[in-house]
């Protein structure tokens, strides 16, 4: 493991997505790679290629079956877990459909979950989210200082998704721990990843069994009653979908809310503008998603593909670096600046193509409510200790501690 952490000498041939300086400020590396080596390569963390240009990312997402989503995590699991997962997929089908499914298996699963996340559906959780955010601020506003990541941003998504899944929002802290276990800390720690994957699947196995006996009108019951290609879903599939719905919206959305608050805490001009012009929030949120979009996705290269003059070799991973594509100066004017009122903004923060994030409307709603509520109650705030801000990186990048005073 220590070898994976040796310093990077050339980012084009030896990048490290967990390098602490890169995690803190990846922009300069992305600019360098886009110009010098738009498809970079590394042997670290299982070996991967990384695409950083907007145009290339737009093409690559459409290349199936050469590029597979069967395991969209960038760092492969441990050999033991990998074998276990492959055996399960052989026996029962895709692990967490639709995110781990390729065409033609993908589409019916995507269509199964999309109705939960239309603008109308996600708006029905707006009042719950507003109450939640206000309750959180009630506990923070008189303190004069807090950790805007840990005490606010992090607290919101697990409770909202718990509410949608019909599970207890009061267990939000556990759901956060599980998500960090499989996605954040689990990326570089195979034991954690295996442990928390099991905890999550066991939790949902129990929940599915309970809902089979006691159906209601919640998401799990809907999945139990649903059919794909004329057949009821297996418990394996339902558990996998629930696992996806729980973890996919937690550290991602929390990273986006946190990055936005971090931005405003450090950019008083932008902060004052949002106080003056709250109607700008929808446009500003798109720009913050463009600039701080947290997620990169992986594909497994199954067949040789040539992109930007580079041949992608089967067996390795490909990183679709959506955040880097979002700062491509070929596509965005003033790409390296946050322009709150940017009008033309074709950003790809939620991915593109068939694997577009199913929860994008939910994430936007949560960001909108979280930021508006914060700004209404705490319009003046700043970083109290800029050096104490910490970031998590890898597949999902965002601030994990943001000390602010107000």
């Amino acid at each position, binding site marked *: 493991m220590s070898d994976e952490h040796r310093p990077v000498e050339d980012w084009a041939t030896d990048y490290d997505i967990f390098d602490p300086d890169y995690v803190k400020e990846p922009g300069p590396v992305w600019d360098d790679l886009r110009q010098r080596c738009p498809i970079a390569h590394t042997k670290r963390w299982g070996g991967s290629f990384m695409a950083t240009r907007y145009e290339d990312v737009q093409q690559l997402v459409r290349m199936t079956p050469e590029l597979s989503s069967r395991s969209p995590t960038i760092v492969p699991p441990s050999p033991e877990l990998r074998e276990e997962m492959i055996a399960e997929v052989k026996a029962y089908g895709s692990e967490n459909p639709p995110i781990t499914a390729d065409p033609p298996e993908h589409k019916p699963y995507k269509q199964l979950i999309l109705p939960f996340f239309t603008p109308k559906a996600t708006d029905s959780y707006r009042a719950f989210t507003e109450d939640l955010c206000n309750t959180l601020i009630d506990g923070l506003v008189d303190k004069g200082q807090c950790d805007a990541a840990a005490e606010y941003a992090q607290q919101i998504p697990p409770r909202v998704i718990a509410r949608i899944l019909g599970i207890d929002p009061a267990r939000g802290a556990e759901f956060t721990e599980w998500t960090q276990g499989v996605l954040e800390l689990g990326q570089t720690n195979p034991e954690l990843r295996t442990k928390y994957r099991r905890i999550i699947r066991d939790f949902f196995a129990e929940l599915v069994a309970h809902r089979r006996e006691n159906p209601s009108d919640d998401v799990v019951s809907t999945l139990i009653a649903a059919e794909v290609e004329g057949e009821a879903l297996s418990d394996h599939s339902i558990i996998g979908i629930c696992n996806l719905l729980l973890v996919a919206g937690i550290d991602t959305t929390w990273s986006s809310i946190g990055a936005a608050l971090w931005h405003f805490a450090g950019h008083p001009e932008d902060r004052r503008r949002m106080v003056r012009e709250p109607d700008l929030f929808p446009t500003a949120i798109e720009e913050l998603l463009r600039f701080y979009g947290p997620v990169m996705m992986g594909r497994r290269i199954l067949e040789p593909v040539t992109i930007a003059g580079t041949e992608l070799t089967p067996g390795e991973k490909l990183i679709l670096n959506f955040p880097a594509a979002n700062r491509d100066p070929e596509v965005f004017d003033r790409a390296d600046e946050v322009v709150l009122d940017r009008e033309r903004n074709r950003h790809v923060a939620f991915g593109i*193509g068939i694997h577009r994030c199913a929860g994008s409307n939910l994430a936007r709603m949560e960001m909108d409510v979280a930021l508006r509520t914060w700004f209404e109650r705490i319009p003046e705030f700043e970083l109290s200790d800029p050096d104490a801000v910490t970031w998590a990186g890898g597949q999902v990048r965002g601030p994990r501690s943001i000390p602010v005073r107000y």
Partner: protein
Amino acid sequence: MRIRVDSEKCEGHNRCKALAAELFDLDDLGYASAVAEGVVPPGAEDQARLAVSNCPEFAIEIVED
């Protein structure tokens, strides 16, 4: 001015609906289509252009007729 949504390209990002609500309909899954056969009412041309230039899938185009 008329607009057209390519249903093969639309992935349901809903950016068009957010920026130009009266020009687009969403189906039960969130995929977009143009209302009134894509005819843009006078005065809504800027909204139509905004929707076009914010679609991450390049799924909307303006058809001048």
